[in-house]
């Protein structure tokens, strides 16, 4: 990418021949149009094909509206918790050196590699009747599985690494000098974080929070298992999409889908803006 103007007769680089260049770009754009762009386009095309009023009606339909409320409620609980965790984890891992640090980073990323279905099953074996705490919960007459708290717990698992993943690479690069200077000048720990660290990481933090939010609202596999998919009770928006689809209410399912698609696109837009304005593109 860096070409110095002084080099006039720059040697040809691999793949610079016009034929090669055009064909590679052409093939990549064609595949991208099919597998990446078309899925986004069809969601909006299908949803808007029956008109905006119809979308409104579909979304106001009681069970879908309930699913929207439940999804928002889940995000309101899960996102702040995982944001706190992400900041704490990134602080511990990037501002200090200790034995097992690399291992801790791997631990933080585990939920990212685990299938959401496995996560859901795992939670069932903790809080379900068959689970580790099953008998104790039974005795106390507390029911967690197939309730809203179960949806929140499973969502906490699945989206745990998202904020930390955005912060760790950035805070790693930024080092500790600024914080140490502030602290040695008498700033408290909290003041150091708020005045020195936060301004440096705010954009990555914003993207991390938005990505976490998009993933919480869109979580399907883990929530399928732990929610019991009780229509109008524990059905979140992604589950509602499936229920409507199975009912052959295709218009309804696409109406529900554009809500989530719009949130996803807004998240991506924030990332694009953040990368455009941050001096050092710090994508993962």
């Amino acid at each position, binding site marked *: 990418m860096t070409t110095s103007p002084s080099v006039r007769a*720059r040697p040809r*680089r691999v793949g610079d021949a016009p034929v090669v260049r055009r064909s*590679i*770009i052409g093939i*990549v*754009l064609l*595949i991208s149009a099919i*597998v*990446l*762009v078309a*899925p986004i386009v*069809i*969601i909006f095309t299908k949803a808007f094909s029956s008109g905006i009023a119809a979308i409104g009606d579909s979304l106001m339909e009681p069970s879908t509206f309930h699913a929207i409320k439940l999804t928002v409620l889940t995000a309101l609980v899960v996102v702040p918790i995982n944001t706190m*965790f992400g900041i*704490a*984890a990134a602080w*511990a891992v990037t*501002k*200090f*050196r*200790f034995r097992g640090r*690399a291992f801790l980073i791997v*631990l933080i*990323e*585990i*939920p990212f*590699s*685990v*299938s959401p*279905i*496995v996560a859901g*099953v795992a939670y*069932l*074996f*903790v809080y379900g009747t*068959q*689970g580790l705490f099953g008998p104790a919960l039974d005795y106390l007459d507390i029911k967690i599985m197939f309730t809203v708290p179960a949806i929140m717990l499973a969502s*906490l698992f699945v989206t*745990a690494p998202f904020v930390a993943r955005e912060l760790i690479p950035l805070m790693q690069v930024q*080092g*500790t000098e600024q914080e*140490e200077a502030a602290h*040695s000048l008498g700033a*408290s720990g909290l003041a150091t*974080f708020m005045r020195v660290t936060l301004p440096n990481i705010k954009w990555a933090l914003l993207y991390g929070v938005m990505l976490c939010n*998009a993933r919480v*609202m*869109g979580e*399907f596999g883990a929530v*399928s*298992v732990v929610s019991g998919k009780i229509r109008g009770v524990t059905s979140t928006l*992604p*589950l509602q999409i*499936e229920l409507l*689809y199975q009912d052959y209410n295709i218009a309804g399912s696409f109406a529900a889908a554009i809500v*989530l698609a719009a*949130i*996803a696109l807004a998240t*991506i837009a924030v990332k*694009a803006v953040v990368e455009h304005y941050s001096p050092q593109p710090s994508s993962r």
Partner: protein
Amino acid sequence: MASSRVLPGFPLAMGVTLTYLSVIVLLPLFALVLKAASIDLETLVAIITSPRTLAAFKITVLTALGAAIFNGVYGLALAWVLVRYEFPGRRLLDTLIDVPFALPTAVAGLALTALFAENGWFGAPLASLGIWVAYTPLGIMIAMTFTSLPFVVRTVQPVLEDLGSDMEEAARSLGAGDARIIRSVIFPEVFPAFLAGVSLSFARNLGEFGAVVFIAGNLPFKTEIAALLTFIRLEEFEYPTAAVIATLMLLAAFLMLLAVNLAQAWHLRHVGRDS
């Protein structure tokens, strides 16, 4: 090694991190493995060797591998195009690559099914050629391709950016041709990252559920993936079977995580910098 013990908050941050990870992540995984471990050997063997389980694993591994290989080639080309060439829409394309990370899998599944169903935009012309996508393993592969699309691009892209042109120019001035430069300069630099990206993609594919269930049709022995079989066994209250399949999937995820970390460690050693 800039060892910083000067800054405050280590006990608090570490305490929060470890407690949270233990309660939210490790406890459930421990409970799952415990459940699977409590099953006697005979039952365990019977569950694993049941034809339906084996078929589900075979379908999952093959489609996951197919999608990972496709994303390997496509992701490499995509990263190459984004780093090496200027063309209209480059920034937009770069941005759109992250869509599969943010778009809910159920939405992706719904969209892909609409596209590739018999009467869909792509499904109809393909069907007239005799190629059926929806409700076949090909459909599963397409769903997996979409959800794991960003991994290879995003691991290879920074390496290609760092590559610069010095080495390439040096090689060319020494008389190396394109093939030689690709083999001796570009490939060794990119390969570890490429391998890490493909492993990440494969790992994600093995566990994919939301996007696949819409497009797969979910026929036992034909288009039933391991994640779905786990789910079905749960609904049938066959908890031991669900525990065993889920534990095997967890094991596979850990193996892939190990592979990714080895590939990344190899890469770091290769470029000679310390994290």
